[in-house]
C-alpha cells in the first residue's frame, strides 16, 4: 500500500501484554441482506460469512467479522502488498457484488487502525475501560464484539487464546493507544 504512515509508531510491551499496530492490512465493510449476496460472497472469496451474532469466520487469507445482521468486516490475515493501493479482494467483490446490485462494498483500510494485542492480561486491560462482559467472549476463539473502550468505539476480534485484534477509527487510535499504555502500566 502506498504512502501509508503509521498511526501508532511505537510497539509497547508490559508484563503479560504486548501491543502494536499491524499495517498495512486490507479492511472492507460489506453490507447486504439478500440470500444471493451471501452466496455471491461465499463463491467469490471461498469464505462463508458468519450469520450468528458476535462470531467470525476465516479462510487462509481473510477473516470475516459479524458486525450486524447485514454488515460484516473483512480483513486480510496477512500484510498487504505495499506496491500499490489495489486489493484483489475488493476488485473481485466490486465486480461480483457492487456491480450486480447485491450489496455494498466499502474500503475502510485507512479508516480503521488494527492494533494487535497479545498476552494473558488483555482482558484485565479491557475491563478497566469497557462496559462489555468479557467472561464468555474470552473463552471462545473467533468471537467478535463492537463495544466501547475508554468511551471510544472499537471492534474486538478474539483471534486466538491470548491474542486479539482491535480495530479503532484512525483519528481515535493515538488517544486510545496512549490510554491503553497508561492503563496497562497500572495493571
Amino acid at each position, binding site marked *: 500500500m502506498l504512502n501509508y504512515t503509521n498511526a501508532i509508531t511505537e510497539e509497547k510491551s508490559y508484563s503479560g501484554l504486548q501491543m502494536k499496530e499491524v499495517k498495512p492490512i486490507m479492511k472492507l465493510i460489506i453490507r447486504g441482506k439478500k440470500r444471493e449476496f451471501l452466496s455471491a460472497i461465499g463463491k467469490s472469496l471461498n469464505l462463508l460469512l458468519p450469520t450468528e*451474532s458476535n462470531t467470525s469466520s476465516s479462510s487462509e487469507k481473510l477473516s470475516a467479522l459479524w458486525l*450486524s445482521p447485514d*454488515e460484516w468486516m473483512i480483513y486480510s490475515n496477512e500484510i498487504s502488498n505495499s506496491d500499490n493501493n489495489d486489493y484483489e479482494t475488493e476488485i473481485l467483490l466490486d465486480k461480483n457484488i457492487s456491480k450486480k446490485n447485491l450489496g455494498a462494498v466499502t474500503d475502510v483500510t485507512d479508516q480503521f487502525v488494527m492494533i494487535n494485542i497479545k498476552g494473558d492480561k488483555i482482558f484485565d486491560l479491557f475491563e478497566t475501560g469497557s*462496559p*462489555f462482559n468479557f467472561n464468555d467472549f474470552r473463552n471462545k476463539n473467533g468471537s467478535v*464484539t*463492537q*463495544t466501547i473502550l475508554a468511551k471510544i*468505539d472499537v471492534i474486538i476480534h478474539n483471534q486466538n487464546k491470548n491474542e486479539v485484534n482491535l480495530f479503532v477509527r484512525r483519528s481515535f487510535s493515538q488517544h486510545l493507544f496512549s490510554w491503553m499504555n497508561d492503563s496497562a502500566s497500572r495493571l
Partner: protein
Amino acid sequence: MFVINCPYCGEREQSEFKAGGEAHIVRPKQPTELSDDQWAEYLFMRKNIKGIQFERWVHTHGCRKWFNVVRDTSNDMIKAVYKMGEKPPTK
C-alpha cells in the same frame, strides 16, 4: 444504569445504547390535510408515563440497529424487547 438485551447482539450495558423516544407513533397518511395543531400533536407531543412505556432504542455503539423496548419507567425494569416491525407483546 441497566442492561438491555439487544435482539441482535445480546445483553449489553445501557451506555452502548441511545433512547429514541416513544414507539408506535404512526405518521399521518395525509399530512397536508392536518391543521397546525394536529401536526404539532403528531410531531411534538409525547406521553411521559410513570409505569410501562413502549420505547425505541438504538444500539449506537454496537450493531447500530433500532428496536423496541417495553420499560417500566418507575424502576427501569425491562419487560420485553422486540425488533422493529414486530407486534408489541401486550398492547
